[in-house]
Each structure stands twice: as C-alpha cells, then as structure tokens.
C-alpha cells in the first residue's frame, strides 16, 4: 500500500532532520480540550493523538484512567468528540486513540467513515492486536484511515516484521512492559526496541509509554524517529494548566528533541 497522509507528513519532517513529537490529549477532558489540541499543535507537535475515553482502558495507567472517567462523567461520547474534532484548526494530522469495543459497537465501516468525515487521519486501538486486526483493518484502509499498530518489547521478531509491514502512518513502539504512565527514567527496553524497529522498517518509528520529559524524549530518539507523550501532558491538564500550560510543556519537549 502507498503511504497515507500521516506517513507522508512524518517522513517529510524526518527527512528534514526533525525528531517527531506526538502529544496525546484525552478528548472531552475539560471544556477547553479543543483549544488544548490546537495549542499543542502550534507548540511543535507533528501530529496529535486524541483519546476517545473508554470505560475499561486496560492499557492505561492511573492518569489517563482518571482523565477518561472525568471526560465520560462530563458526558463525552465518541460522537460528541468527533463533532468537536471537526472544529479543530491545525495543520498537522489528527489521530484517534481508543479501545476496540467503541469501534466494534459503532461498526467498523461506520466508525472508519466517521473518522474520515471529521478529518481524522489515523487510529490507534491498543487492545486490537495484529491477529485480530482483519475486519477493522480492511474498513480503515477503505476509508483512508491509517491504523497505527503497536509493537511491544517482547514481540517476537517475526510478528514485529509483520506489524511493521501492516502498520500505517507510523509504527508505535511501546517503550516499556507496562501501561501508560510517567516513569522516573526511560526504560532500558526503549533503546532495544527502537533499534529493532529501525532495523525492520523504513516507516517512521515512534516510541511511547513511559516517555514524559524533554530528557527522556531526547534519549528515546537516539534510537527512534520520535516520541508519543501522553500521561505527562494529561497529568498537567488534570492539574488545570489549560491550553497555555499544555503548549509550554510541549514546547519544552520540542526544545529537548531539537537539541539532539
């Protein structure tokens, strides 16, 4: 398959010598979340991940669990979040991150089409592994939505190559054996996985989970093309920093990456 818009955009930036940065924002968290997305995009993000909250997020640690519960309690639904997304004005690709039951309930084709219609270019479903990808993968391809697949530190080599070849947009390396959340240091698994992925694919390789500071972002991109930062940003949003504070944090991450 030819690269889609996300992969094209990220490749172009990588080729220009830039390290890639994808912040994660929980959709529906606080009334100003749309402005948060716009602010982090303007502050140096190369794409933005928007979480559609799910009641049972098994891949998420306490911070994103809390953000998801707050958003759900405030009445966020997949439909309300996608309607808000349509109003977002940014010049970087938007990617939705949610859990498979949200997609399954809506129906593969309907969900893929609604993403495309609202201007979402990609999707990440952390509980839909390669072996279960079929139905959604086809529907997403048909709608032009790039499904970004995850690789874990313990993924065997054969599966790793299959995931790299099937993933669209970028390849998401899970930097640590564990769920989302900040860690005091970057896990030793990050560098190993980054190198394995870079050896297996020419697609952009981004590491996420346990990458939460400018220093960790810089360290992770020694062996990868970029990073995804979720809990460290969402914690700040839960603490009330708002769009400006989110932009400051993303700018600091950007500066950390640009120094490398």
């Amino acid at each position, binding site marked *: 398959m030819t690269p889609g818009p996300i992969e094209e955009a990220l490749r172009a930036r990588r080729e220009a010598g830039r390290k890639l940065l994808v912040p994660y924002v929980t959709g529906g968290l606080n009334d100003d979340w749309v402005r948060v997305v716009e602010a982090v995009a303007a502050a140096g993000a190369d794409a933005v991940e928007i979480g559609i909250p799910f009641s*049972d997020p098994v891949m998420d640690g306490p911070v994103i669990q809390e953000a998801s519960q707050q958003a759900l309690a405030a009445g966020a639904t997949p439909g309300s979040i996608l309607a808000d997304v349509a109003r977002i004005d940014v010049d970087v690709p938007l990617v939705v991150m949610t859990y498979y039951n949200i997609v399954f309930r809506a129906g593969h084709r309907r969900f893929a089409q609604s993403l495309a219609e609202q201007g979402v270019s990609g999707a990440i479903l952390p509980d839909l592994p390669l072996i279960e990808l079929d139905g959604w993968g086809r529907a997403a391809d048909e709608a032009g939505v790039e499904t970004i697949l995850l690789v874990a530190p313990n993924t065997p080599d054969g599966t790793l190559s299959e995931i790299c070849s099937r993933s669209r947009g970028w390849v998401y390396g899970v930097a640590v054996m564990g769920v989302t959340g900040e860690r005091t240091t970057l896990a030793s698994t990050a560098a190993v996985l980054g190198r394995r992925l870079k050896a297996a694919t020419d697609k952009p390789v981004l590491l996420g989970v346990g990458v939460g500071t400018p220093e960790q972002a810089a360290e992770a991109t020694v062996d990868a093309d970029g990073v995804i930062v979720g809990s460290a940003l969402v914690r700040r949003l839960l603490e009330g920093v708002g769009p400006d504070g989110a932009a400051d944090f993303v700018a600091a991450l950007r500066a950390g990456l640009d120094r490398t």
Partner: protein
Amino acid sequence: MTSLMGQPTSDGRFGEFGGRFLPESLIPACAELETAFTEAWADAAFHDEYESVLRDYGGRPTPVTECRNLSAQLGIRVLLKREDLAHTGSHKINNVIGQALLARRMGKTRLIAETGAGQHGVATATAAALLGFECRIYMGAVDVVRQALNVFRMELLGAEVVPVSSGSRTLKDAINETLREWVATVGATHYCLGSVMGPHPYPWMVREFQRIVGTEAHGQCRELLDGADPDVVVACVGGGSNAAGTFAGFVDTDARLVGVEPAGGAAIGRGIPGVVHGSKSYLLQDEHGQVLEAHSLSAGLDYPGVGPEHAHLAASGRVTYHAAGDAEVLDAFSLLARTEGIIPALEPAHALAWVIRAAGTDDLPAGCTVMVTLSGRGDKDVAQVAAMFEQSGLLSPRG
C-alpha cells in the same frame, strides 16, 4: 465448524465469540500459555497429578445429594452437585489447581488473580500456598467491604490483597487492574484467571479444568437414576465457569441445559455482542460501547459480561439462559437452608431460585428430575444476608 464444547478454533473462537483482544504485550504470554496447556492436557502424567491433588487435597469427587424435602415441596426431583463440599468451599479450586500446576510446569514463580466474591481469590491463594507461589489478588474496593472475611482468609494464606478503586470498584475493575499488572510482570507471573472468560486460551482451559464437575455429576446421576440422565441440568452464570464445567458433562446427553444469570447482570439476557477483557461475547454496554456496571447482591455474579462459549451456546440454542432477581434469590437461599440443612452461596442460589420459580411449569413439569450445581457454600454470605434481612425489616430467615 467446532462441535459444541469441543476445542475452539485455532484463533480461539466459539462460533463468532472469543478471540484474543489484548495489548500486543500480552499476546506472546497467551500463545505460550496455549502451547503449555495443549501439551499438558495431552500428557497423562499431568492429568494424574491434577486429579490426585483434587482427590487427596481438594476432596473430590464431591457427592450428588438428593434433596428429598425440597423435592417433596416443589413436586419435582432435585439433585445437587455439591461443589460447596470441595476444599475452599467452591468449584473454584478445580480451576486454580489446574492453572497452578500448569504455571509451575511453565516455570512461573508468581500468581496474580482477580476476585469478585473472594472465592476465586481464596482458591488461588490456597493453591499458591500449597505449591509455593508468591500471590497477589486484585479485588474491587466495594467487594473488599462486602466480603471482608474472604480478604482475611486470603491474607492468612499468605496472599497480598490489593483493593481496586477505579471504575465501578467491582469484579470488572479488578480484572482491568490484574491485566494492567500482567502487562508489566508477564515474564515470571501467571495470571490465574477465575472464569471461562478472557483471551484465548482461558475460556477453553478453564472449562477443561472445570469439566471434572460435569464428568463426575454425569456418572453420579446415572447411578442415582438407574442409568438415566436428569431431564434438566441447571447452573448459575456470572462469567460462567461452574456452568461450563457442568454443561460439558451433559452436552452430549438429552438433558436440557439451563444457565441462570443475575437479573442485574444478565449479559446474555440483555447484553449485545461486545469486546472487553480479551474476548468477544455478550456484554452489558451503552449505545456508545461503554461497559455498564452490573448490579447484583452476589459479588461473584456482579459482572457485565459472560464467557464467550456461553454466548455461543446461547446462540446455538443448546443452552437456555434465564435471570433471577435478588428477592427470589434470598428466598431460595433461606429455603435450601431450612429444607435441606445446606446454606448455599448466593451465586448458586440464583440457579435454585429459577428452579423454585419454574417447578411445576412447562420448564420443569411436575415429576421431572433436575440437577443443580451448588457451586459454593454460603458461609461467606451469611453476614451480608443477615444485614439484608435486618435492613429490609420484612422477613426473618424463618419467613
């Protein structure tokens, strides 16, 4: 096509249900477990060890008891498969002994598990003590309060009990938290899942470890009934492990099979297909796909999903599923105590409640024979039931 209650397909499907919907980090562990179980279950030495532990330590076989007083009152013949008499007080021991022996064979040193009512947690802590595993049990904060005695039991057995305060703070959230820990500790840790749910191979493996209930009951009923099978076989269904084990022994007979769900958590009765905790099955969820909280007085059935094989058995028509409400469950709890001197756990009291309601109707015509799996004993529930009788101010246990 797979035959009913045989092996699932290679991708873990029972009909359209089942599968392995988990983060990529856990896929290698599920594959490793599938290989290990497949090899062990084909190994006569493993069967010997599993059966001898359940016999010499677990108290198997459990008897089938004919309930003469209850039968006279209901006008039908009621037999109980007495899993309440198994070590630790429920059928849960069958599964955990199987999984703990398997985990040892796989070289794991640590067991983690979720628990609702606490029965599976107690059973896992027991197996861990017996076989020398470290053990951590995740339990919803609501259930920690409801089942304080079982928390103490687990701690007495050397396990660490971790209260889970996320989400609805019950069984479903305990499973989420156990899965989250497993993602981080998967190398040396075996997730000892308590029911016929979760990702492949768990629904199949747990049913096979519970098949002993149905196999024994089938033979015991034939002895009691002069070579005949019961007309109807009934078991309660939360995740559905005692029912799956029971039905596995009778699926190839002419017996009608009935599963009884709690009215407040009737995934088959009121759910629609969905995916949570690793597999596709019927699920209580809203129009957007958010999982709903189940509401049952029984912590062990307080779960919004159901094992994928039950979804398939329901779709195939081989098993019929009904629901029982809290009030009739309490009545059944008291009735069995008074008529037979057996205090059932609240979970199988659901199965009894349906039997009491259906007795004399077309579902259970006068004179028919029904076997109910009494999956556990009610000791754990008496404090909760006493408080409910007191609160309701209506009926004393004497009725």
